């Protein structure tokens, strides 16, 4: 591992509480952003630190530059429009910075 949680290779673009969304684009090759959150709005719950880029690591590259990794909280109702249970239910997903955009 190149960097521990909490250390940054460059300043994070987002901070806890920021409203973000996951672009609804397709991934070319290996990607760790699940389909079910693409195009969905969320809120940054935590900034984990910088980690090697899995989209490069997967192809035997060093995974550099490292990417800032965030914990993003999504309302279940935003992710699954037919979600029937609790209104306050959430799903939290760890997402790398290139897969986050600020909410307009």
């Amino acid at each position, binding site marked *: *591992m190149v960097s*521990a*949680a909490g250390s940054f290779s460059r300043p994070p673009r987002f901070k806890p509480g920021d409203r973000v969304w996951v672009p609804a684009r397709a991934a070319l090759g290996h990607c*760790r*952003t*699940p389909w*079910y959150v693409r195009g969905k709005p969320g809120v940054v719950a935590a900034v*984990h*630190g910088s*980690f090697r880029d*899995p989209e490069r690591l997967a192809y035997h590259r060093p995974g550099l530059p490292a990417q800032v*990794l965030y*914990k993003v909280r999504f309302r*279940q109702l935003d*992710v*699954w429009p037919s*979600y029937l*249970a*609790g209104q*306050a*239910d*959430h*799903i*939290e*997903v*760890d*997402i*790398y910075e290139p897969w986050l955009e600020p909410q307009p």
Partner: protein
Amino acid sequence: MHDDDDHQHHHHAGHDHAHPPAQKDHDAAPMGAYEVLEEAVRSLLIEKGILTSGEIAAAVDLMDSRSPALGAKVVARAWVDAAFKKRLIKDTRAALLELGIDIGTIAEFSTVENTPQVHNVIVCTLCSCYPKMLLGIPPAWYKSLAYRSRTVVDPRGVLAEFGVELGREVAVRVHDSTADLRYIVLPMRPKATRGWSEDQLAAIVTRDCMIGTALPTVPSRPARRAAR
């Protein structure tokens, strides 16, 4: 083989049902591509002097030594020591080191705390990431497509199947470990455990409690035998 069949037929003479096939040895099937690859890479690493067989065996032993008992010890400590609990939630790696537990460098760890308002449950939808260094080898169901897909779509339904029924006043928070962090759930300490020792407490913290698919329960006292 033929003798065995005759033997079985002798036993079941007159019965008209199918026999299950004899259980095969786990390594009876021909090697798959990944097994061949693993053996080839391992042999090369040893041949080139990069690793020794002893080092590989030691790594396997280390992994085998991890079990939910380790996680239960951590939870019990957090239940009796509020300052430790705070440190565990803030920096899981450092707090575990205090207990002599080294989680290695493969992933970071994060502890998520259950409260009367929030129940946490862990899943990995992309593959089957699991806090192995604290809980050992994951159960087969954790790696199943059913658990991985249904836990994100219908967590309350999945939890109910595990026997965890949550009221609407409790928010369910699913954690999908998609990246470099492994999660462990810190369950709530049952009220009926006042005055218990750490060892007693650790005994009721099961693996599933730390995945979020169970709640710690206090065994009821054995019922008194009814008078004859």
